């Protein structure tokens, strides 16, 4: 294992020290492992997300003006805990209530549930939106359902803009939920990730194979197949996503994220093929991000997210945002 770290169990604490050193405009609570925005909130709804670490810039990179008020950092690939989430809620609640943005993993869901109970005990009003957008997983009410991946970024941005406009908790939650339901994602891994505490790759992937539909924690996907060209991968993931939801007839927000170990030049190579595959299907990409937004430690590969938008969602998407990983209009 080759990583820029000091010790496997120090990675999270050290990374938070680095975030604090690099971004004086963020308040880092090292005890509770929170990254909190210092921008004024003035009586509006506050947004909190969080999850296991190892997916940076998600979530701490999205804390700031027009997006999250706080991010709770769990251990690597491990949901944060209810007391962290409560501390975050206490730090950012203005009385207008708190929206929890939760990726659909049992750990995250259960811990945010417990946090909501604790917050209620403290008189803090909460609502939650659960993102479950990974089409690689069969959807079913009998299981844990789909994993939450890239749509989370778009929920955080748009809900952040809605909160900044002074909308109520119910309304912000409704918009978040609308985005969440309108999003679909699919990822492909060329290599496994390696957890610092484990020291070797989480799964073996032969030199000539790839994992289609991989999870951001290295969860196996739909199938393992021989390594394909960018063109064929693009068509595979676009098909998987568009087979699941019809993206024609509305402006679409697209997010192509690297998984941590794939350089930008490769993302652009495959984005060219993705754009062509979408155009072939008559899908209109209104906004697009290409880069590392939701990663899986050092995994090589990418994930594509599409969100079916409308004028209102595009307006909120375009609203000013100032975070370390997403910034415009300010």
């Amino acid at each position, binding site marked *: 294992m080759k990583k820029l770290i000091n010790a496997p*169990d120090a990675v999270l604490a050290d990374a938070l020290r680095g975030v604090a050193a690099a971004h004086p405009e963020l308040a880092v609570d090292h005890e509770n492992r929170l990254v909190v925005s210092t921008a004024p909130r003035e009586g509006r709804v506050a947004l909190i997300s969080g999850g*296991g670490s190892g997916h940076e810039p998600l979530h701490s990179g999205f804390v700031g003006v027009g997006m999250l008020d706080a991010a709770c950092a*769990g*251990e*690597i*690939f*491990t*949901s*944060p*805990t*209810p*007391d*962290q989430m409560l501390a975050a809620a206490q730090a950012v609640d203005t009385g207008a209530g708190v929206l929890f943005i939760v990726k659909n*993993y*049992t*750990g995250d869901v*259960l*811990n945010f*549930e*417990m946090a909501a109970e604790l917050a209620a005990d403290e008189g803090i009003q909460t609502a939650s939106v659960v993102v479950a957008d*990974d089409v*690689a*997983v*069969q959807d079913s009410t*009998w*299981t*844990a359902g*789909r*994993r939450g991946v890239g749509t989370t970024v778009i929920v955080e941005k748009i809900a952040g803009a809605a909160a900044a406009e002074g909308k109520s908790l119910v309304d912000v939650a409704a918009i978040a939920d609308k985005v969440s339901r309108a999003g679909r994602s699919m990822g492909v891994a060329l290599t496994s990730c390696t*957890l610092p*505490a*484990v020291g070797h790759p*989480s*799964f073996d992937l032969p030199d000539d194979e790839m994992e289609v539909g991989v*999870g951001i*924690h*290295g*969860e*196996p996907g739909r199938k393992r197949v021989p390594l394909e060209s960018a063109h064929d991968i693009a068509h595979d993931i676009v098909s998987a996503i568009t087979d699941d939801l019809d993206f024609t007839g509305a402006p679409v927000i697209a997010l192509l994220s690297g998984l941590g170990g794939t350089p930008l030049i490769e993302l652009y190579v495959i984005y060219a093929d993705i754009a062509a595959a979408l155009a072939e299907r008559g899908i209109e990409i209104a906004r697009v991000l290409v880069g590392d937004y939701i990663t899986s430690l050092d995994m090589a590969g990418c994930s594509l997210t599409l969100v079916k938008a409308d004028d209102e969602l595009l307006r909120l998407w375009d609203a000013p945002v100032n975070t370390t990983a997403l910034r415009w209009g300010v």
Partner: protein
Amino acid sequence: MASTVTSAELEAWLRAAAVELAAHADELTALDSAIGDADHGTNMARGFAAVIEKLDAASGGEPTVPALLKSVGMTLVSKVGGASGSLYGTLFLDMAKASPAEDALTLAQAADVVAAGVAGVVGRGHAVVGDKTMIDAWEPAVTALQDAAASGASAADAFAAAAAAAAQGRDATEPLIARKGRASYLGERSAGHIDPGAASTTILLDTLARVTAESASDGKSA
């Protein structure tokens, strides 16, 4: 033949469990690699190390059983994270709630307390037997424990029976297709692997059986 469980025994159990979980951390993580995200061993080891720290730091006399269980539950909730943190945390917190404020429980009380804890886990996680989760180990363990208590067995024998039932439940998860937790994302590819949470459950109950057996033989020899 002791058919009670004291908080001292429970504390001895927790200390022994921390050692066992640390020793088996890689094994649990390997199970979680196959159908999850490769952190269950690290999570449990970290959580129980924090429990021991808390026990070491506690001053004053032996706590009551519910005080001990609550402190463990709170520690697990705040230190483990992930699914197992909230579920094991809930287990201990709900055991604490069901426990009389005494220094010891009768075996019958202990069986009810464990049953209440497991009911809490089900209430939170909504898993049923066959979903390929820790519940597949806990449910048969509770039944075995309650049966043993009803038949007047010793605590050591009762926990041994519970541990054996848990081990069977754990092994029975192997062929199953997961319907809850992270392994459920794999669909059919989850079959052929033992559930890590069922494995850690069995470690906890094995250790409890061993500790109560040792304490019983200590009592005899004393």
